[in-house]
C-alpha cells in the first residue's frame, strides 16, 4: 500500500467509525462540546500514532504468545501519559475533568488495538505511525462533525462561544447520547450514498 493511501484512506474511504464501526461508545459520550471532542480527537491520534510507532519498531522481537499483552502494556502507558499531561496544564485540566473516564477508556477503543494488530505489527515504523495518526484523525473528524451539531443545537454555542441568537431555545434531546447515534447514522448514510461500493446488494 502506498503511503498516500495509508494516510488518506482512514480519513474517508475506510473511516474507523463510519465504515469499520469502531469507537462508537466514546463518540457518543464525548461529543457534547467541540472542545471535548477536539481534545479527545488529539488524544486518540497521539495514543494511536505513537503506540503504533513503538510496537512497529518492536514487532520482530515481540514473542507471539504474549503479543496482545505487550500491545496492551504499551497502549496503556500511552493513555496514562496523555491523561497525566492533560491534567498538568491549566487550560486542559477542566476538559480532562469533563472527559473523566473517557480518556482512560481510550485503551478500550477498538481503533487503537485494531490498527496495531492489523497494521503496525506487519509494517515498517513510519507507515505504521502515519496509519495510527490517520486513523485517529478519521475518528476525530467524525467526532468533530457530531460535536458541531450537538453543541450548536444543544447549547447554541461553538467552542463555548455563543453562536445562536439569545432567543434560541436549546434542544435537550441533542445533548443526550441517543442523538449522537442518530447523527452518526446520518453520517454513515451520506457516506454510503457517495461511496457506492459500501452498499450491500
Amino acid at each position, binding site marked *: 500500500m502506498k503511503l498516500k493511501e495509508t494516510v488518506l484512506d482512514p480519513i474517508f474511504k475506510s473511516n474507523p467509525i463510519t465504515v469499520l464501526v469502531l469507537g462508537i461508545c466514546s463518540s457518543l459520550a464525548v461529543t457534547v462540546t467541540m472542545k471535548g471532542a477536539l481534545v479527545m480527537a488529539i488524544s486518540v491520534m497521539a495514543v494511536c500514532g505513537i503506540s503504533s510507532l513503538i510496537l512497529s519498531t518492536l514487532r520482530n522481537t515481540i514473542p507471539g504468545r504474549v503479543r496482545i499483552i*505487550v500491545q496492551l502494556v504499551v497502549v496503556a502507558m500511552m493513555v496514562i501519559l496523555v491523561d*497525566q499531561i492533560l491534567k*498538568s*496544564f491549566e487550560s486542559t485540566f477542566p476538559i480532562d475533568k469533563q472527559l473523566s473516564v473517557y480518556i482512560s477508556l481510550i485503551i478500550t477503543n477498538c481503533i487503537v488495538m485494531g490498527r496495531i494488530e492489523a497494521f503496525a505489527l506487519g509494517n515498517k515504523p513510519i507507515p505504521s505511525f502515519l496509519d495510527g495518526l490517520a486513523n485517529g484523525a478519521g475518528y476525530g473528524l467524525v467526532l468533530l462533525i457530531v460535536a458541531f451539531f450537538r453543541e450548536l443545537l444543544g447549547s447554541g454555542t461553538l467552542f463555548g462561544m455563543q453562536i445562536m441568537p439569545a432567543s434560541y431555545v436549546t434542544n435537550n434531546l441533542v445533548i443526550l447520547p441517543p442523538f449522537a447515534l442518530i447523527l452518526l447514522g446520518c453520517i454513515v448514510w451520506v457516506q454510503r450514498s457517495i461511496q457506492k461500493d459500501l452498499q450491500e446488494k
Partner: protein
Amino acid sequence: MNTNSNLYTVIYTAIIVTVVAAVLAFVSQSLKGKQEANEKAETISQMLTAGGFGSKAEFQAMGNVKVLETYGNEIEEAFTVDAEGAKVADLDLGQKEVFSRSQLKAQNYKVKDGNGYAIPVYKFKNGITVVPVYGAGLWGPVWGYIAFEADGQTIHGAYFDHESETAGLGAKIKDDPAFQAEFVGEKAFFGESPVFAIVKGGAPKEDGKSVVDNQIDAITGATMTSNGLDAAINMWLGAYAAYFGTFKAEEE
C-alpha cells in the same frame, strides 16, 4: 533467535513492564507539582462556588492565579477542628493551604470512627463558613462543600463533585444547578439525627416551595448516588456538630 521460547517470553515481558513502569513513574513525579496546583485551584473554586462568591464557570474562566487571589481576599480564617469542636491547628493562609481530596479521604476514616479527626473549617470575611463533606457514591468517591450563614445553621450554598458517577443521573450532583440550589435556605439540624436528609419521594413542600427544614429531594434515577451523598453529608456535618454548637452558645 527463537522468540517463542519460554525464557525469552518471560525476560521480554519483564523488561517491557519495567521500562513502562519507569517511564510512568518518572512522568508522574515530574508533573506532580503542576497537577497539585491545578487540583488546589479546583478545590478552592469549588469552595468559593459553594460560598456564593461566583459561579463555577466564572472561576474556571478566571484561571488558577485569580482564583487563589479571590480566595486570599475573601478568607478570614481557616483551621481544623476536632470532635469537641475545639480548634486543633491553623491552616496557613499565606500559602492558601486547603485540605486536598486525599487529605479529606484520610480524615474520612477517622470521622467514620467518630474520634481522632481534625477536619477543616473555612471562615470567610462576610460571615460565611464553608465545610467539606466526603463519602462514597455509586461508582467512586463523592465530595463537596457546604456553606453556612453566620447563624451556623442555615445553608447558604453547596457545591458537589464526584469521580465517576453516571453521566446524566448521578453526575447531576455536580452538573445540575437545580439540585445544588435546593440546599439554599435549608437548615442543618446539628445535634439531631439525621442532621440533613436527601429524601426519596419528596421533601415536604408548601405552595410548590420546599419547606425550610433539613430535607431536600433526591435525584430521580440516582438513588445510590443520592443515598451516598446523604450519608456523606450526615456523617461529616455530624462530625462538625460540636463546632457549630459553639455558634449557638455565643448567640445566647
